[in-house]
């Protein structure tokens, strides 16, 4: 029994087509000159910032009892990124000759040749003077568990780009250690040697030095496309309102029990603690501001002709080149279809670039176009 089939074309509403075949849906959109998220081809999403008032030193001089030193809430499209900056203290191991004079004398006698030339023939790395923050990125996805690949990649790319952009110098993280003096009535007062008055260091200064380690906790809500630009902007805006507390040494080492959770059992470790941070006095974190710029991403979509032929109606504007440059990729269709991508991180007045990643066969003029767009975007970037 031969029953012949005839194929009737099925038609789906746009939302269903977007789920079934994102590429086709995007081609149809581009063919009639619009993007699924209704932005123009070269239009960036605007980004709104505020510090969210999560940090200890909130806007007014009210001190909040939290260990967060800087924060930022960023909203772009329907994606929200919340960044909180916290810190830790680490004792710097200073080279011997800086610690005390007799060590230098000892070195002079016994290891004459080694110490002197050992540290000046290795060229100082460009990055020796700079430090990076330690970001942990978490994308809210309704699953509890180990970080996903995207979260790890975002954290590492953030760490590396931040370090190589030379934004945070090592001495801006030095802990300003004050001296505690208790006068007769037992009134405690702490004297901080202000860096501007370089009065001679009255010899009492502690020989040991400490520096801060900065951590950034980045929480992303409702992800709708590549996240690096938003995470970069959020972390940098959080750092710009971060303040570092001053600290003083406490003679009777207060034993602090720090609860730590190792594989489910609740142990506590006892810490000998000498450094106590001041409750109120703090200094803003000094950043190399002209190195801080914005990050932009672009996707290049190749137009495949036959999906356009099927659209014979008049509003299919003829597409000049065979591929279209889209800015600020957002939405599933654009993310899946952009096989070729460009990601640019520029410095403040986008004269120099800090990071550039090109994936796929990108022509030089598409590259030139994206550089222009970053410069153009910078002028209108709402700080």
């Amino acid at each position: 029994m031969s029953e012949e089939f005839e194929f009737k074309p099925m038609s789906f509403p746009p939302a269903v087509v977007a789920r079934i075949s994102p590429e086709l849906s995007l081609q149809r959109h581009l063919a009639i000159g619009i993007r699924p998220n209704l932005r123009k081809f070269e239009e960036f999403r605007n980004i709104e910032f505020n510090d969210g008032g999560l940090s200890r030193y909130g806007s007014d001089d009210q001190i909040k009892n939290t260990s967060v030193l800087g924060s930022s809430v960023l909203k772009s499209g329907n994606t929200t990124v919340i960044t909180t900056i916290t810190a830790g203290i680490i004792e710097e191991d200073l080279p011997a000759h800086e610690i005390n004079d007799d060590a230098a004398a000892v070195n002079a006698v016994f290891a004459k040749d080694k110490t002197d030339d050992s540290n000046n023939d290795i060229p100082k790395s460009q990055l020796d003077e700079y430090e990076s923050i330690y970001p942990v990125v978490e994308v809210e996805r309704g699953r509890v568990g180990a970080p996903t690949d995207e979260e790890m990649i975002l954290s590492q790319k953030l760490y590396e780009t931040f370090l190589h952009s030379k934004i945070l110098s090592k001495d801006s993280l030095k802990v300003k250690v004050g001296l505690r003096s208790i006068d007769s009535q037992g009134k405690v007062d702490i004297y901080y040697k202000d860096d501007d008055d370089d009065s001679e260091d009255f010899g009492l200064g502690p020989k040991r030095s400490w520096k801060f380690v900065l951590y950034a906790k980045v929480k992303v809500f409702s992800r709708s496309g590549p996240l690096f630009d938003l995470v970069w902007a959020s972390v940098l805006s959080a750092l710009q309102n971060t303040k570092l507390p001053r600290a003083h040494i406490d003679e009777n080492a207060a034993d602090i029990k720090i609860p730590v959770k190792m594989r489910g059992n609740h142990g506590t470790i006892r810490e000998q603690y000498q450094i106590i941070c001041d409750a109120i006095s703090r200094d803003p974190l000094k950043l190399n501001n002209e190195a801080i710029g914005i990050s932009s991403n672009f996707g290049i979509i190749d137009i495949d002709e036959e999906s356009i032929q099927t659209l014979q109606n008049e509003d299919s504007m003829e597409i000049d080149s065979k591929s279209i440059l889209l800015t600020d990729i957002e939405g599933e269709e654009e993310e899946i279809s952009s096989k070729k991508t460009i990601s640019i991180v520029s410095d403040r007045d986008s004269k120099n670039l800090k990071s550039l990643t090109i994936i796929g066969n990108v022509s030089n003029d598409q590259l030139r176009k994206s550089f222009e767009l970053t410069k153009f975007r910078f002028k209108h970037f709402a700080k």
Partner: protein
Amino acid sequence: MILSATERSYLYELLQQTPPIRPDGRSNKQFRPIQSHIGFLDNSNGSAKITLSDGSECIVSIKAEVVEKSTTNELVSVDVDVSGHRDDTSFILNLQSSLKTLYLKHISSESLNLTTKFAYKLFIDVLVISNYSYPLTLMTFTSYLALNNTYLPKITSSVDDKEIEEQPTFHDYEFNKLIGQFPIVFTVAIIGKNYIIDPNIEEMEVSDNGLIISWFNGKPISPIQNVKLNDGNLKSVKPQLILQSIDLVKEVANDVINSLNSAE
């Protein structure tokens, strides 16, 4: 505890009557008989074991340690282990947190004080070997017995040892009893408009909600919280039912305390 639909509705109807008819014929303020042993662990300062009539069994051992007051912020530490439950589930952590807040508040630090620098730290280890009903009441009864029979070594060196360097020294065999009042906790199951004390496994399975009320030297004390006694059907509770449950506990508490004190 799996109950078929008919068993469930039969029990529910039974417990709905006024006064509630319980499967084992108890009144709503009657406890099940318990069997207790005290001081049977010789290398701990205080110990007790209670076995319930439905087979639940709980052992509590209390050990004391001499610690420096300056470096320890809590003089009582509680560790709970219920067989059949991993110890980082919320069920265990909640039990532990209720017990810990209870004992930290109500074990007076003077009774543990030794010298200006040193004090006793109590380690209360609660081990529930098998539990068929909500274990909190059983655990507090057993620790009540254990705490009441804890004997701490008598100190012989001087009490004010601010300047003395060495540790305090103790008498070889003389002990003094840990004095003080200790809290216990009552579990009340609420079914429809009735409330019953000391629910057994079937009553818990059918109950709408459960209430934990703590009791300390003669009056109910916080924390008070509601608790789900079964995984299935939890229902809301009328406020006056909570108040009536508290009155029920007030009626019952004193004779429970007396019977516990009389246990040898």
